[in-house]
């Protein structure tokens, strides 16, 4: 049986050997590994890039107070980005599944069409959800557009859902029962030990206690700061503010206080920030 951390080690080793820089998670609240500048900004322009990293990803609306065995507000993605996408990337990816312990002679692995779109990032790509015996374990995307800019070189992004993958490999129906460190008995550390408290408390925060007025103010501040920093061409600090605005939007959304039109409006505002950052990045780093 592969522990949660063993899966990460295997993937890191595999993609590190392939030639990716194995990096650490981005130190901000992001909704998906794609938001990290190590994916998003690095995918612009002509320079080649290969990286792999775990990205804890926050989706406040998915919080279930630790009560749902399948859903959490903070999950872990293993993110691989390669630019330009290699010609044999599908085979390379399938080998990574063997490495974590999915024997394709026993399983049914499928590439099911998925058009990926992130309205907040003004980003779009084509690819698939990878299903293993009916469970989606990876998103496989060829980026086509980021921040409203059509990509020059095409980046392939592979996003493994680590919880799903681990539940699959450990034949476990409840995420909290996952074995994190691979030990049994007293030495065992489970997903429950690591994550349950944060699931309960952050669910309460996102659904009940987050102060919407403060969130709105923070959003406005981040927006203002981002625009100022873009003018100074400080792209990474500016982009951090864009990420912040996006997370604040997700919190407001989870609180259920946004009407349909305000929702659309705020998404457009975050997208505008992402676009600004991308434009300067492309201009300065070609």
């Amino acid at each position: 049986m592969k522990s949660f951390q063993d899966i990460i080690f295997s993937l890191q080793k595999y993609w590190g050997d392939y030639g990716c820089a194995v990096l650490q998670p981005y130190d901000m609240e992001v909704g998906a590994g794609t938001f990290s500048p190590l994916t998003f900004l690095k995918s612009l322009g002509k320079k080649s890039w290969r990286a792999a990293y775990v990205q804890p990803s926050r989706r406040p609306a998915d919080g279930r107070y630790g009560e749902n065995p399948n859903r959490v507000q903070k999950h872990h993605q293993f993110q691989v980005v390669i630019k330009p996408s290699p010609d044999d990337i599908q085979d390379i990816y399938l080998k990574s599944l063997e490495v974590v312990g999915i024997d394709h002679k026993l399983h049914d692995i499928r590439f099911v069409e998925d058009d990926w779109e992130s309205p907040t990032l003004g980003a779009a790509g084509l690819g698939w959800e990878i299903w293993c015996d009916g469970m989606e374990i990876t998103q496989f995307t060829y980026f086509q557009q980021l921040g409203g800019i059509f990509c020059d070189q095409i980046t392939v992004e592979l996003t493994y859902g680590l919880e799903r993958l681990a539940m699959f490999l450990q034949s476990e129906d409840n995420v909290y029962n996952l074995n994190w460190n691979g030990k049994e008995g007293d030495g065992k550390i489970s997903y429950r030990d690591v994550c349950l408290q944060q699931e309960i408390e952050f669910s309460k925060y996102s659904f009940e206690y987050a102060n919407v007025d403060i969130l709105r103010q923070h959003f406005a501040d981040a927006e203002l700061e981002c625009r100022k920093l873009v003018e100074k061409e400080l792209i990474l600090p500016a982009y951090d503010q864009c990420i912040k605005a996006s997370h604040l939007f997700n919190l407001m959304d989870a609180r259920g206080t946004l009407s349909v039109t305000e929702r659309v409006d705020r998404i457009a505002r975050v997208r505008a920030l992402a676009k600004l950052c991308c434009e300067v990045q492309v201009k300065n780093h070609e």
Partner: protein
Amino acid sequence: MNNFLLELMVEEIPSGVQTEAISEFEKLVTAELEKCRIRYKNSYSYISPRRIVFSAELNLKVDEFTEEKKGPQITATPEVIERFLHANSVSRRECIEKEVDKKIFLFIKIKHKVRDTSEVLGNIIKNCTKKILWNKSMRWGNYQFYFVRPLRNVMAIFNGNLLDIKFDEINLVSCNHTYGHRFIAPQKIEIANVDEYFSKMKNAFVILDAKERRNVIIDEFKNLESQRSIFVEVNENLLDEVVGLVEYPVVLLGRIPERFMKLPEEVITTPLRVHQRYFPTRIDGKLAPYFVFIANNVATDGGKTIIEGNERVLNARLADALFFFETDLQCSLESRRADLRKIAFNDKLGNVLDRANRVSNVCDYICNSLEMEDSHLVKRSSILAKCDLATSMVCEFPELQGIMGAHYARIQGEDPAVCDAIRCQYLPVHEITSSISAILSLADKIELVTTFFALEKKPTGSKDPFALRRAAIGILKITEKFQFDFNLKEIIQKTFQQLPDDLRIDTVDCVHDFILGRLKIVLKEMGIQQNILNATVTGEDSILNIFSKSKVLNDFLQNSLGEKLLIIHKRTKNIILLNSETFVDEKLLQEKEEITLWEKIKKLEEKFSRIAIESESFIEKFTQQLSACAEMAQDASVFFDKILVNTDDSMIRQNRLNLLTRLSFIFDTVIPAGL
């Protein structure tokens, strides 16, 4: 025997676009072959998730032919003409002049010599490959090339040899090998000729023909059905999708744990079908605790692991559903109304509860207008209609809106008619069977169209994000199907009055015109002639009467009696022009024909009043009055043949005009202006 074979290997092509793409590709290639004068026969093509295949028997030589190429007009500037001559390496003397549409153009004759097919075939294939129109295409790597998904291998064999095709843009050159099934037979397979290809692919677990994959699945379904005494519920769209997801279908059967079987059927079948692409099964019409699915792999353990995995995924989804179902049942459906307030609808128009209340009021207006007997049931339906939007089941599975409301209402003991109305509100009109359900659906649609028009969000061009056109057509179809005779404009007016007053003031007229515009389209689709619907669709009549009139007139005017009536009606109008006097002085009637006509007119007028009193419906009245007029047409025709209206005697002339005016006014009541 076919001598040409092409196989394009692509990373998994989305299932939904495969069928159209392959038929387009075959058309493109054969059209190009014809254009290039390459004779072909026995062409066919196949598509699988990873392959686009074309084969045909081609002539080895291209036919000799002369092409006439059109150049500029002879009056064009010398530079233009010179450019044309230069581009085609010809002199002015070699050109001929030819007239096209009364203008004279230069033409040149280009003689194409006999060539080997192999010289041109590569380019044809390459061009056609690039010309396939995908609804979404993409780039990959650092290549400037667009295709549905990355193109990875091109195998092209012509007359036993490798046909050279270079896709320089993606660094790919054609070869004479392919690969088998991604997991079962991934090895390289050399192909020498067309026949060998099919047998070798079959051995490599690739079924190229989508029809054959479909049949394999259906046969397997039948086997399972007889083995397990179950019935596999086949949804054709889902089957088509699955056929495009696999190269070697393997049908497997999974179990649904008994504890989930108490859930309403839709709660089980929705995740099954929509989320997992599984097929539900039935025993004696009831949902059975099995599901059937199609894998793309012959597993070494006979599929045991695959089945277990799929069962686990489904169980997780159903466990969620069961939890939602049980939670939802802890509160009454009606108590959810308070929660509807928390769901925003629109900044100006408030929340979903506000909307639900408006729909409920519109139901009242319609019931009053129709003098509906069961209006209390309509009212109850409208109070509960939107409540399920606040249940956790519908939050999780939005496609179950209406359906869950109906289940929860049934479990809580609501009247079956109310449950049906809740279920039917989002369904297409042909699935609505009771008038209670029809009124709720009608009210919902009228409210929807009116509010969005008031917010200036009416459809423009191809954009109709709130599906208002469909809603308008729904309004019309319900009206016709249930024979609801009501004043639509008045209902729209009352709906609009419920909205805040800072919205668009001419909304009522706009909505009414919009719906009448849709009405023309609906009538046209029913086969009503354009001139008839142009005349019948007016703001004066009720929607139901317009439907009735249009249908009766359309049938009537197609027979000779109808045609005759229309001719007489026009002729009468042309004579009377602006005369509006209708007093007929019997003493001034001289001729036999005019006396007869006058007698008949009087009788017709009596008949009209009698029909009006005795008819039970508008359509009956209209039909009878129309045929009474048609009978008159014969007498009027005799009158016109024998009597000169414009005599010198002005008194007699006026009297005859009045006689005809009287007739014309009767016709006007059944024949719409403009016909």
